[in-house]
């Protein structure tokens, strides 16, 4: 028992890999078995991760479930993992979506099922590892490991232009990460003891402000592409549109959040003065993302592409909140990360189900689905309301905190106009989402509703119901989440917003 307790985080992180190995050992033909194992392991991962939630103890500057094993001490990197509140929430979001993703593609994926299942499981471990890492080498390994399975998911099981989309996705994200790798090396050689350990690098700090800026930019570029921040977003609509539903759910649900997580975990605390200096610029880009992303949604004729662009708008809220540097706004940003994972994940799930039935993503073909498939219409409505941040659904609290926290920020220059312009996203979100909803579900039945469109099946209900439940529960009771993230949020707000007053001093023990 004691072993499990002390290694819990590692166990949860690598459990999907175990499933992947098992599938690899099985004979190729049995698709059903492969899916079964993938589902079982992702479900087990989720169930085990609940222990992380119950066992989590928030404490300032400490990580729960910390585990450190020397790996290559001479080189300064170790297997060091642990969770703070922010990582915990995203970790749970990932394990929560895991079984849903596997179940969602049960029918749709019929070719090379074993590779597909392996890719899904490896992807899950890569994401979990990225969140759990407390060592920059480990982080980088997991970070890059996310790319490959996702690349395969888009490239092998995507639709017509999948190759273009997959390569575009790969190149965009890869180019960003290379610079980050260089910056990580710089940090390593700069830290007194030549260490990749996050805590040590945080303590060591970077004294020279202009160096800080370059390093911040290197990290920020990698993260900004992942988020994506305008104008680095154009890989996203292509990737989403071409990816199979499961890929889109993971991509929107958690992978985009790796970018925002990177900001709050690495780019901001490691380079507080630079983060403070660049905050207004990032906030402006965030607001552009909100408004521009919403406008892009209005110009789409493709169902999935529209929802992909809505991610640009929603993640704009997150970036605005992170750069406002108030506890309210940053808490809201983190909450919005989780909420977006649930609501947009759910949207892609539903769109996937629609596509399975109609084989078209063209909005013009849709119409009147509420008549033939009332259950799909009802669930889609709840998700739509969550996406436009209606109070009572999860979407509201995050957006509200971001906006009110930005409005009252004394740190961010131009906070008031930024918050006001950002708040127009509340209107625009309703404009495109309700337009989409009316287009698909209301009016007389059109082409896509034609051939006896089936309503939600039992299997599909199992994937949708947990998401609906999360939408309502987190809308009514978001406080446990906010309590969990309080420590890390306060820490990063303190560290960055006061960076110009007390420059980080290198600790004596860190000197060579």
């Amino acid at each position, binding site marked *: 028992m004691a072993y499990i307790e002390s290694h819990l985080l590692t166990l949860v992180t690598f459990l999907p890999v175990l499933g992947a190995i098992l599938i690899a050992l099985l004979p190729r033909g049995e698709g059903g078995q492969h899916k079964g194992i993938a589902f079982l392991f992702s479900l087990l991962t989720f169930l085990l991760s609940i222990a992380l939630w119950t066992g989590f103890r928030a404490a300032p500057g400490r990580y729960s479930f910390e585990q450190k094993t020397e790996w290559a001490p001479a*080189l*300064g990197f170790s297997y060091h993992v642990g969770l703070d509140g922010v990582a915990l929430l995203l970790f749970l979001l990932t394990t929560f979506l895991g079984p849903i993703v596997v179940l969602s593609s049960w029918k749709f994926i019929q070719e090379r099922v074993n*590779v597909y299942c392996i890719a899904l499981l490896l992807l899950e471990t890569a994401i979990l590892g990225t969140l759990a890492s407390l060592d920059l080498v480990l982080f980088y390994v997991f970070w890059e490991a996310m790319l*490959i399975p996702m690349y*395969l998911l888009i*490239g*092998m099981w995507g639709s017509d232009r999948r*190759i*273009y989309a*997959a*390569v*575009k996705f790969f*190149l965009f994200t890869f180019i960003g990460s290379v610079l980050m*790798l260089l910056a990580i*090396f710089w940090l390593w*050689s700069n830290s007194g003891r*030549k260490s990749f350990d996050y805590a040590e690098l945080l303590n060591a700090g970077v004294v020279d402000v202009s160096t800080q800026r370059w390093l911040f930019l290197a990290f920020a570029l990698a993260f900004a592409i992942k988020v994506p921040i305008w*104008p680095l977003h*154009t*890989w996203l609509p292509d990737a989403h549109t071409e990816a199979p539903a499961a890929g889109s759910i993971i991509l929107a649900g958690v992978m985009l959040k790796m970018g925002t997580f990177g900001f709050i975990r690495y780019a901001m605390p490691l380079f507080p003065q630079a983060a403070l200096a660049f905050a207004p610029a990032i906030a402006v880009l965030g607001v552009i993302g909100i408004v*521009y992303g919403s*406008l*892009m*949604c*209005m*110009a*789409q004729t493709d169902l999935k592409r529209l929802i992909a662009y809505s991610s640009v708008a929603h993640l704009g809220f997150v970036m605005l909140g992170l750069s406002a540097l*108030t*506890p*309210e706004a940053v*808490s809201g940003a983190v909450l919005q990360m989780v909420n977006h994972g649930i609501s947009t994940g759910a949207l892609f799930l539903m769109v996937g189900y629609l596509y399975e039935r109609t084989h078209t993503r063209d909005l013009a073909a849709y119409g*009147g689905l509420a*008549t033939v498939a009332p259950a799909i219409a009802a669930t889609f409505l709840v998700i739509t309301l969550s996406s436009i941040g*209606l*109070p*009572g659904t999860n979407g509201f*609290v995050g957006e*509200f*905190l971001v*906006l*009110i926290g930005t*409005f*009252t920020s004394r740190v961010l220059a131009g906070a008031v106009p930024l918050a*006001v312009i950002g*708040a*127009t996203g*509340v*209107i625009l979100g309703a*404009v495109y989402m*309700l*337009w989409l909803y*009316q287009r698909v*579900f*209301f*009016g*007389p039945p059109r082409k896509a509703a034609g051939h006896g469109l089936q309503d939600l099946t039992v299997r599909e209900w199992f994937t949708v119901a947990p998401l609906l439940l999360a939408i309502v529960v987190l809308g009514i009771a*978001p*406080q446990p989440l*906010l309590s969990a993230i*309080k420590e890390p949020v306060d820490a990063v707000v303190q560290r960055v917003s006061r960076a110009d007053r007390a420059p980080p001093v290198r600790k004596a023990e860190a000197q060579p």
Partner: protein
Amino acid sequence: MEVTWLHLVPLLPLIGAAICGLVGKWLPKGWVYAVALASVLLSFLIGLRAFIGLGEQAPLFHELWFNWFSAGSLRVDMAFSFDRLSGALTLVVTGVGFLIHVYSVGYMEEDPGYWRYFSYLNLFIAAMMTLVLGDNLVAMFVGWEGVGLCSYLLIGFWFTDEEKAYAGRKAFIVNRIGDFGFLIGIFILFNQVGTVGIAQINSAVLPLGVASIAALCLFIGATGKSAQLPLYIWLPDAMAGPTPVSALIHAATMVTAGVYMVARLSHLYVSAPGVMAVVAVVGVLTALWSALIATSQNDIKKVLAYSTVSQLGFMFIGVGVGAFFAGTMHLVTHAFFKACLFLGSGAVIHGLHGEQDIQRMGGLRKYLPSTRTTFLVATIAITGILPISGFFSKDEILGQALHTRAFSFLTLTPDGSTRLTWLGPLIYAVGSFSAFLTSFYMWRCYFLTFSGEYRGPESVHPHESPSVMTLPLWILAALSVIGLVLGLPQAWVHGTGLQHWTWEHFTDGVFSRPRGGAPEEFSPYLGYGIALIVGWAGWACSYALYFKRGLAGDELLTARIHVLRGALANKLYVDELYDFLVVRPFWALARGLFRLVDATLIDGLFVNGIPTLIAWVGAMARRFQNGDVQRYLAVTALGVAALLYVFLVRG
């Protein structure tokens, strides 16, 4: 006094909504009715018990239900407060709401979506009660957006009709524009006061500038929800929903939320006297504007819709001139008589198998006697030709506007030479003219519907509705009469048992006084006289045109003022104007930006334009397409190993 049961008022209908919505489809019809009606009735009874207890036990009941969320210095609670204003509103919403639920049992009898309907209706009551009882701005906002959602769902209830679905969406989006203002208002007040609690805001000292901007932003929210200029355009279209919904949401309760909010935040508004002038002016302009349009509408529900917009304008005059009690009193009486009118129109439509055009009605007094009588009573109330509820409440607003001192110290010029003392009397004059128009169009509607001979097709046989529908009509008609008690002048009731029941006395101490002070005591008789003359003048014009001539009255009027009537019949082309100025350019902007920036600049020029990149893409694609996944994975693994090697050497 802290209590633990207040949350039941919104919670019970919410549970009702959940039951009807989730399992109502499979329950027997009677159960759905029972759940929906019982939950609202219970809410009403709890409200009634609390209301009776208000005077005896405490001036205010308060409940902190749970802490919704906290972050940084912001703390948002789900907390409710029940004072005389929110208490009275609770009774109106749940009481009128219950009657409309009863009526709906008859009205929606044949609709297969009845369970959905009752779920939405219950959800509406829950949201509206959250709005009314919420003791902080965010809780209020929850209700504010919640009622907007129910409005959206119910307007588009018959969603297979594209136009109705569009009307619902339009309502939601126009409301969201208002909600944007509401949100900014919350931000400003939180920034200034450090809390979102209404009680704290109402006792804070607010600098003029901050108070003005916050009050203005919140008022933008009110113009959305309460359908005032320039955001009123959604309400007439909202008539696409089932008629009981129009009565409940789009006449009696939800649309008055803006007035309620301004009254609730009376301290904020008296701290911003300039904004109060704006409120009053917007109110009177809206009252006039929509009364004008109402004179030329032929859809019975559209007439009533524009009438509602106009009456809401009157309420805003009341709160704008600092007579918060007058504005809210009209809110209450209007809930009675307008609900009665809408339900009456519903009975007419029901009795004529869906006919809404008053040109094809006429002579219905013979076929629908109960509907006719109750409609008549409510028409008398709204037009104020006899001193029942509407007469007193409307006249109180106009009298207060005439004598107001809320603007007496406002200046238009920096040197203070021009004072706004003339604004009150001007509002009185325009308001009185609007009252004349009100009388005119309401009697037109009444005469064309119930008087003369039946003009509809032979195939339709008008019939009276079942008693489940007429009973609520009678109760509402009775309330439209009894409501007069609220508005009796102090002098008449002094020393009698009715003294405590006049609205002015009842709400004493609930509202802040305007900075110029309340008006000096004035005798109401001159105002009453003028109001009666105005009301009867409207009746007389209508009588001469429509009672005597029937539809020919419209032709006569059109012949005289051809252009104006044409414009009015087309709703003064406001929808077309907005479409041309805002909606189309906006969508064009979205498409243009997409083509120019995303497709051409970013993707075309930078991403795909670089030839080497394209070569890369081609090469990668070719390599990928041979399908050898293992080789690819191996290459990646090698890459990772190479990276590790790089810092091995450096180490």
